[in-house]
């Protein structure tokens, strides 16, 4: 009798595990579904540039500012954050160079994992090109994010730190990401929740993100995304100070 019960238990447990494994879709299907849920590959392909504007806030210290991001296919980016008393913080990626310039630290070139991370973020059609950006993707489990069941997907890039994303089981939209931000200050865990998807040029963009880093909260609100607007080429040109750093590095 006891053997029968044990066999039954084993059958039930294994059956449940099998059913659970069956319930988890592949990471590939989840990531492709996200592309479809946000407008479809064709809609993404019609975009060649975008100018994103919004606000940025750090509620705890009480800092607020504005941000503008210019991006162009396939991988050019220039962002400006004007953050009240901290001043202007510019960053860019162009021609394989990833850089930053601020009143606080001056100009600098990004390298290593920091460069890889910023370079991935500069990819204009990153959602469509996830296979190239993340050679390994795996569905881990189902977890709840703000009351919504999500597929938890681990993404491993060719270089740089892996990240975990949470896609809504119901809508297919990305709701949360957990990653490790790398900078000369060190590695810091970053948790970002995104919401308020709105359509711009036939593609859904999350217009609100709430990021937790080292106990500090940062809230970004996108107010407008202008699609295929002509962007002056000088926005993507390397600033003279950055060119000087490249020349200096080359001379060494």
């Amino acid at each position, binding site marked *: 009798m006891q053997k029968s019960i044990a066999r039954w238990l084993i059958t039930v447990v294994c059956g449940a595990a099998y059913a659970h494994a069956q319930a988890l879709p592949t990471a590939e299907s989840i990531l492709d579904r996200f592309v479809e849920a946000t407008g479809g590959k064709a809609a993404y392909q019609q975009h060649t540039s975008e100018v994103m504007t919004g606000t940025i806030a750090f509620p705890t*210290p009480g800092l607020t500012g504005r941000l503008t991001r210019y991006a162009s296919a396939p991988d050019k980016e220039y962002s400006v954050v004007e953050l009240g008393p901290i001043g202007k913080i510019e960053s860019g990626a162009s021609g394989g160079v990833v850089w930053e310039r601020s009143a606080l630290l001056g100009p600098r070139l990004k390298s290593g994992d920091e460069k890889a991370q910023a370079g991935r973020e500069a990819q204009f059609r990153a959602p469509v090109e996830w296979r190239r950006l993340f050679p390994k993707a795996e569905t881990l489990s189902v977890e709840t994010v703000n009351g919504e069941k999500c597929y938890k997907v681990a993404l491993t890039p060719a270089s740089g730190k892996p990240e975990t994303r949470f896609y809504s089981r119901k809508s297919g939209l990305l709701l949360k990401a957990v990653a490790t931000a790398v900078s000369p200050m060190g590695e*810091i*865990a970053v948790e970002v929740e995104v919401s308020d998807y709105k359509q711009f040029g036939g593609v859904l963009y999350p217009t609100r993100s709430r990021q937790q880093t080292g106990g500090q909260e940062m809230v970004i609100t996108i107010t407008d995304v202008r699609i295929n607007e002509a962007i002056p080429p000088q926005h993507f040109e390397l600033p003279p100070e950055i060119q000087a750093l490249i020349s200096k590095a080359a001379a060494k």
Partner: protein
Amino acid sequence: MAAVSVTLLCGVLVLPAAAQAPPEQKQANLASFEFVWTTIRDQHWDKNPGGLDWQAIGAEFRPRVEQAATGEAAREILREMLGRLKQTHFAIFPAPVYQDLAAATGGDGWPGFEVRVVDGRVLVTGGSAVPLGWQVLNVEGTDLRALVAALQKDPAIHELQLERALAARFSGPVGAARRITFADGSDQPQTRELKLEPPRGELAGFGNLPPQHVWLESKKLGETGYIRFNFFLDLVRVMQSFGEAVEACAHCGGIVIDLRGNVGGIGAMAMGMAGWFVDKPGQRLGTMTMRNATLNFFINPRAGAYNGPLAILVDGSSASTAEIFAGGLRDLGRARVFGTRSAGAALPSIFTRLPNGDGFQYAVANYVSVSGETLEAKGVTPDVEVKLTRETLLAGQDAVLDAALAWIRGQRIQ
């Protein structure tokens, strides 16, 4: 690091505590205990604060606080509990102390002179309203000798707080008069009625930090550049002025950065400023460890970084970011530090008030310099210790600056 500034400023600008009625004392004592114990449990950078079993500490001390007959007894028990941490910047300040530290006058006006406490005496060390070296005896009826003696008796009051408390005695609304009695160079009493002048610098805020008047001065002393500023705040203007001052001194025989009296501000400004004196990448000033993150104070070398002799001046009122900057560059072998030991307040710590009216200071991060030393409580010990004396001040000399200039001259000769 902005939290450090808020902390240091708030620590000397709090209001006197309200008296507690005896029947409420026990409840207030217990509420204060819970506040202190919970705050350290949740905010300390180490999950086991000070390597202790914090639950066991709570179980040991909570019944004792419940049994405390008076507020004073409860305070001593809390101090004993904090003492178990064997870490500084965890302190309980008796409510009555705040009455001595309080800035009762309000207003931004200043009397046109700076003071420091030297050997228990409040001496004029800067400004032009009265001669250097005069001793301040009395301000508006308050005997400063007695006040300083009383404050110096409390081990929880360090030099930084003492001097901020004194500065508050002199300040007030612009245009208001202050009747001040000095002892002149011959120790004869001299009474002056000084009209408070508008504060130096420009008002600059940083988020929730109350706006501060921030100034930066730079000049040439012979062939040596001299830069002095009072806060690591007003980031855009100060960083630009600082960079311009260094660039203007590209061919100077040396540069002196005077951080005496600079109580800190935005920590990241130390990184940005250090970049003007370091040309090798991959360097850092130190590391700050919080509960959930560890941050390097990295240095981004500037294209026009200055490579000549660098002297940094500090004193007991140099705190926070000023200590990180001075200690970090010294540890890298990039600067020589002159003056007296800095405040040892390099951790982001927070001052708050407890339900029983006492003050409570607690640190939320640990800062370790590049040499592996914690600056907390220890401060930056100068390479060359030089103390101000009344004699040199009366002679119109700044002994600390003179020592730094002499060292720079010596470097040039070598």
